[in-house]
């Protein structure tokens, strides 16, 4: 049984997140270890395992990036290990530029405006890549899945940029 089946969903990228959260809560209530507090050791252990599984399924499907990665695994797409270096030159050049842009923010005359600008640029580029990946995942052909995999790897760089942006904001505005 895969995570989609466990949570009663079709194996599709676009999913009803409200329904997902509802099913998760119902399942979690049914298998919660507290319900088995007076049970045997075996029952307690089983409840913990089930609860963990339900939780893993929910955390994976809730997050679009993790969901995409999970779907590609289910489709047996040959994913390069995360340790394999990425060498798309123009993409990496852009990543350098974005990192430099981020590094310049704290020297800007108007820091608020600079933060807003970077945020908008990052969001727009993420959104564009994300939509492309979404279309490719829905297409679900061998070629489209390979392209989705490539875009998923690119999206991870944007996730990292987002983390860096959050750190920068904490540094700038958190007194």
């Amino acid at each position, binding site marked *: 049984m895969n995570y989609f089946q466990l949570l009663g969903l079709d194996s599709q990228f676009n999913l009803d997140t409200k329904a997902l959260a509802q099913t998760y809560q119902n399942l979690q209530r049914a298998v919660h270890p507290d319900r088995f507090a007076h049970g045997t050791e075996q029952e307690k252990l089983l409840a913990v395992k089930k609860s963990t599984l339900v939780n893993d399924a929910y955390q994976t499907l809730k997050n679009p990036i993790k969901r995409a990665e999970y779907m590609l695994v289910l489709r047996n797409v040959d994913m390069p290990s995360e*340790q394999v270096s990425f060498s798309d030159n123009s993409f990496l050049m852009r*990543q*350098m530029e974005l990192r430099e842009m981020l590094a310049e923010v704290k020297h800007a005359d108007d820091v608020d405006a600079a933060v807003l600008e970077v945020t908008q640029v990052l969001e727009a580029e993420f959104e564009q890549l994300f939509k492309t990946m979404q279309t490719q995942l829905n297409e679900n052909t061998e070629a489209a899945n390979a392209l989705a995999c490539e875009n998923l790897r690119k999206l991870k760089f944007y996730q*990292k940029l987002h983390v860096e942006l959050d750190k920068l904001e904490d540094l700038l505005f958190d007194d």
Partner: protein
Amino acid sequence: MAYSEKVIDHYENPRNVGSMDKDDPQVATGMVGAPACGDVMKLQLRISEDGIIEDAKFKTYGCGSAIASSSLVTEWVKGKSIEEAGKIKNTAIAEELALPPVKIHCSILAEDAIKAAIEDYRSKNPQ
């Protein structure tokens, strides 16, 4: 996680940070990235007519180990031929910096950056 003294030294005093003109035919540029951590590394080499690396610069956005790995590599490649530089292995980098297993990918990134730069040089200067 504790960084080794060598990593801290390179992190605090990175050698050869900077950029060269990527359009210069004698400048080789290697760009690599690690999706796992979002690190981006640029290594540039100035290569003489007879294939010797005269200068090296790097710019890395990433963790201390990634910065130390690229900084170390710029020191190692200077004065080497491109053939010799191409033989530098990530294991040697990891060993020199005493990188823990979770940071081995930083040394792989640095090795891949050398290879990418050499490839760029060869495509610019076909034999």
